[in-house]
């Protein structure tokens, strides 16, 4: 064994394992509160705003008359067009879901 190996081995052996003795618990006690509360608050705000916007749109559009008009227009479309529209909507939603899943898994890998 050369002198460098000996020196490295001696240095490693001179640094014994340090028992935790409550160190981890002390660190965990000082961590800031988990983000969950913020996430919940954000969800409540978003849902509330969505609900308010829906009510506002319903009132402004004269009781949601535009929905009936749109449905009537859709019903008047040929079946093939409706199928194409449904397929396109499905593809857009699938692409959006896949993008979100990929970005989430990338974030967890870094």
């Amino acid at each position: 064994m050369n002198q460098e190996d000996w020196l490295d081995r001696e240095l490693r052996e001179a640094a014994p394992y340090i028992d935790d003795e409550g160190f981890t618990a002390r660190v965990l006690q000082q961590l800031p509160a988990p983000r969950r509360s913020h996430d919940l608050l954000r969800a409540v705000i978003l849902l509330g705003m969505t609900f308010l916007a829906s009510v506002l749109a319903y009132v402004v559009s004269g009781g949601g008359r535009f929905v009936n008009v749109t449905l009537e227009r859709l019903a008047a479309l040929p079946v093939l067009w409706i199928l194409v529209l449904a397929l396109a909507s499905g593809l857009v939603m699938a692409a959006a879901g896949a993008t979100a899943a990929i970005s989430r898994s990338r974030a967890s890998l870094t």
Partner: protein
Amino acid sequence: MELTDADLVARVLVDDDQHAFGELVRRHQSSVRGLLRQLTRTDVALADDLAQQAFLRAYKNIRSFRGEARFSTWLYRIAYNCFREDARRRKELVGIDEERLQTQHDPQAADPGLRHDLMRALNLLPLHERSAILLCCQNGLSHDEAARVLDIPLGTVKTNVLRGREKLKRMLAD
């Protein structure tokens, strides 16, 4: 199956899982506290305070961990920065007065069971050489990893390790 450090980091990132972070602390507390004890010359209380600071900082900045280096290397860098900032505050980052240090009370020297000539010799090295020796020889980091931790060029790390080793050998031979 035991989760890897990367798995635990992912849990902290995605779910803000503090238990996962606790496991990371448990895994690395010994090496981080050990490194800081050597850097602070066996000032256990100061080393543990700095280690706590380092882990808290790691938790707050975990999003900046890109997984390019090992988690332990990233952690050593934070710990070393905590030590350096504290040393600057205490104005101790200047060179070491070896004569003064030799006459200081050394807790290891008081106990013959713990007295290691090697550790005493290590404590006499200047900070830049001591840090490089601790990281590369004691904690098994590559020169490249040590350069990242210490934020100095690779060549400087190699020189510091070489010089530190030579000095240690000389001191032990005396």
